[in-house]
């Protein structure tokens, strides 16, 4: 009996019942660009970078259940251009000065932008005012780069059992908050060994005093493109 399959850009992709399009595609070695999806967590569906065309209709590949015979378009000119625009939106919404960022070369947002051929911001910058939280002895929070993927929220809740983070506000004012009376990370029980400390795909949650231990040029995405298996998401 042959496995059930859907097609991705014309190629057969096998799946097991319960798979989403993204899960099945990734297992088969395909790259559907994504930021807020991570194999250790349930689908979130907020970044929308994984938007594909399923039987002609747009949908987030992380959220759509795979089923027999679906025709999925992934790398079309239109979809990749749309991804580029979504990435540009994330860049201008925050403050991303890649050359001075410790995450540069290890950053999923930056690597995905390279992969999608993004060369400039395209839209006017928002330059939001987002103060840095340096209150914790071992961890720095630079909110300027937060893309609201909620991976830290999920990791802290589901794996660390600590609920250090939450999302607050609405609309363009949506932002990450820290759980303590002062709102400062230094007043939480967060530890550098927590899963939440390592999962941020961009340069918000950073270990202190480790800056540039691995020189730029030798980092994760300096070596391999984000499309490579094993490089598609943050650790």
């Amino acid at each position, binding site marked *: 009996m042959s496995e059930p399959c859907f097609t991705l850009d014309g190629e057969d992709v096998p799946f097991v019942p319960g798979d989403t399009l993204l899960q099945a595609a990734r297992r088969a070695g395909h790259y559907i660009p994504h930021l807020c999806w991570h194999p250790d967590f349930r689908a979130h569906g907020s970044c*929308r970078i994984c938007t594909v065309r399923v039987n002609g209709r747009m949908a987030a590949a992380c959220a759509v259940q795979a089923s027999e015979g679906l025709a999925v378009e992934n790398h079309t000119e239109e979809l990749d251009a*749309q991804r580029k625009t979504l990435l540009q939106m994330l860049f201008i919404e925050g403050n991303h000065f890649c050359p001075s960022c410790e995450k540069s070369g290890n950053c999923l947002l930056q690597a995905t932008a390279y992969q999608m051929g993004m060369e400039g911001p395209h839209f006017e910058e928002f330059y939001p005012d987002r103060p840095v939280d340096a209150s914790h002895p071992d961890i720095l929070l630079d909110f300027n780069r937060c893309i609201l993927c909620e991976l830290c929220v999920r990791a802290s809740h589901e794996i660390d059992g600590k609920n250090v983070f939450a999302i607050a506000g*609405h609309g*363009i*004012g*949506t932002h990450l908050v820290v*759980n303590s*009376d002062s709102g400062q990370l230094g007043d939480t029980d967060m530890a550098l060994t927590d899963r939440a400390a390592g999962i941020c795909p961009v340069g918000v949650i950073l270990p202190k005093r480790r800056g540039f231990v691995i020189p730029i040029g030798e980092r994760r995405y300096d070596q391999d493109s984000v499309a490579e298996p094993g490089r598609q998401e943050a650790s």
Partner: protein
Amino acid sequence: MLHFPRHRNSLVQLLREAQEQHGWLPRPLLADLARELGLTLAQVEGVASFYRFFHLQPVGRWRVLFSDNITDRLLGSEALMAQLCERLRVKPGEMRTDGRVSVAATSCTGLCDQGPALLINHQLVITRLDAQRVARIAELIESDTPASSWPAEWFRIDDNVRRADVLLGQPIAAGQALAAALARGPAAMLEEMKRSNLRGRGGAGFTTGTKWALCREAAGSERVVVCNADEGEPGTFKDRVLLSRHADLVFEGMTIAAAAIGAKQGLVYLRGEYRYLLEPLRETLQRRRDAHLLGTAIQGHDGFDFDIDIHLGAGAYVCGEESSLIESLEGKRGTPRIRPPFPVQQGYMGRPTTVNNVETFCAAAHIAVQGGDWWAAIGTPKSTGTKIHSVSGDCERPGLYEYPFGTRIGRILEDCGARDTQAVQVGGPSGVCLSAFEFGRRIAFEDVPTAGAFMVFDRSRDMFEVARNFAHFFAHESCGFCTPCRVGTALVVKRMDKLAQGHGSRHDVDVLYELDKLMHGATHCGLGATACNPLRDTIAKFRPAYERHLKSLYFEPAFDLDAELSVARQITGRDDPASHLETAE
């Protein structure tokens, strides 16, 4: 804390009741609540900061919110708000230093037929504002006169039913429809609903009988009936009138749904703007319990137990989207869920849940009495029955108009006394904008679908300003969850404001088109997907309105590059042609 159990599912209700007592929500209060409910302070802060009506900073003891729908603006609300601010010496959005008053704008309050309107302390509504009223309000606030001794006339809310058909014109005695449904039995009632081909009146138009059947068949023992009374779409106020005049019928429709799907629990999600309806609705519920129309063994049917609670929203349009509404009912931020699972499979607290619009439940009650075939004979084949329209804007007789589906736009315009009409916005900002050459089109799912709003604009109006008002609305109401809507709606506002200030060019119009296309396909829910509809329609149909706002037909940056160089020219003492940027003409 009278009404709600101290449980995390009640968080939004508990926050609202706490704020009614304290005026605002100080951080220690959030911390207490968090401790009691087993949540973190950050989680409670996350919920409280999601809803526009919750205040995490002190606000005036008098909190005045002007309704900011385009219909209020057509009636002069902006100038009136400026007058009130001036008289009270307070800046919009800020609290006066003595803590007495704050004045701000809010999204449509559902009183477009008697605007301009405002809300006081989220409890009281003043309609038909004018300069005189505003001057008196300022005096009464200044002298701290309790609202109970303000002129009662100010708080009058009219129903303005101008054309009644089945729903507004054929009363049903309390209990009559339910008795008919129970006599039929659940299976036959579902059959009747399917035969009626009634489609949901909340906008999406899903067949109600099918939704109920799916809910009934879904795995799970406890089922829930939810009435969507969020009515957040600007320009819509039909559900307000149904809830004031026909509350019994709404609850009866919910009870019929409960019988049909096998539910014991009913919830009404009432928008925060309709806070003043809460007590009358609770009284109606009590009357129905006393009459054995709710509670245990309803109308003597052993085993048929069902009751209804009312949850109040707190100012968030997106909570009208059914999965956000369920999140909000569970005390969370109103972020739409990923589907599947659909609410009919796993909704409120994971239970199979049917969410229907207020008008849908009224229609169901009528179908219980008169049968599915009767309903199906009204309207058009794919849009059966009647539809209530909330008519406002430039017309002589704003109010409610109920027609069978298939009615011409032009007919509605004639009936409401609209003259020299330039455009009609049908279905609210997320609907369609029709220009004069389309007034022969018909209201129906086959042609022009609608959730109920019908806003009229005559030729004196600037359709660009209409679209700009809607753009601000969507940006203000975006839940902020997904990238395209969170950032896209903010970018649209920036472009529209730039055009309004006369700095725009055709390039900006092109970018607006591009954003529309992106948001249509890429957003997580319908809010972002439809946010650019009015833009696209007005650009296509009222292009001159945009071009009047363009400084140049070519690219125009948000600042003047050449002017930026004037300092450099001063320093170098140059002003020759070569020291100026080449400007494209």
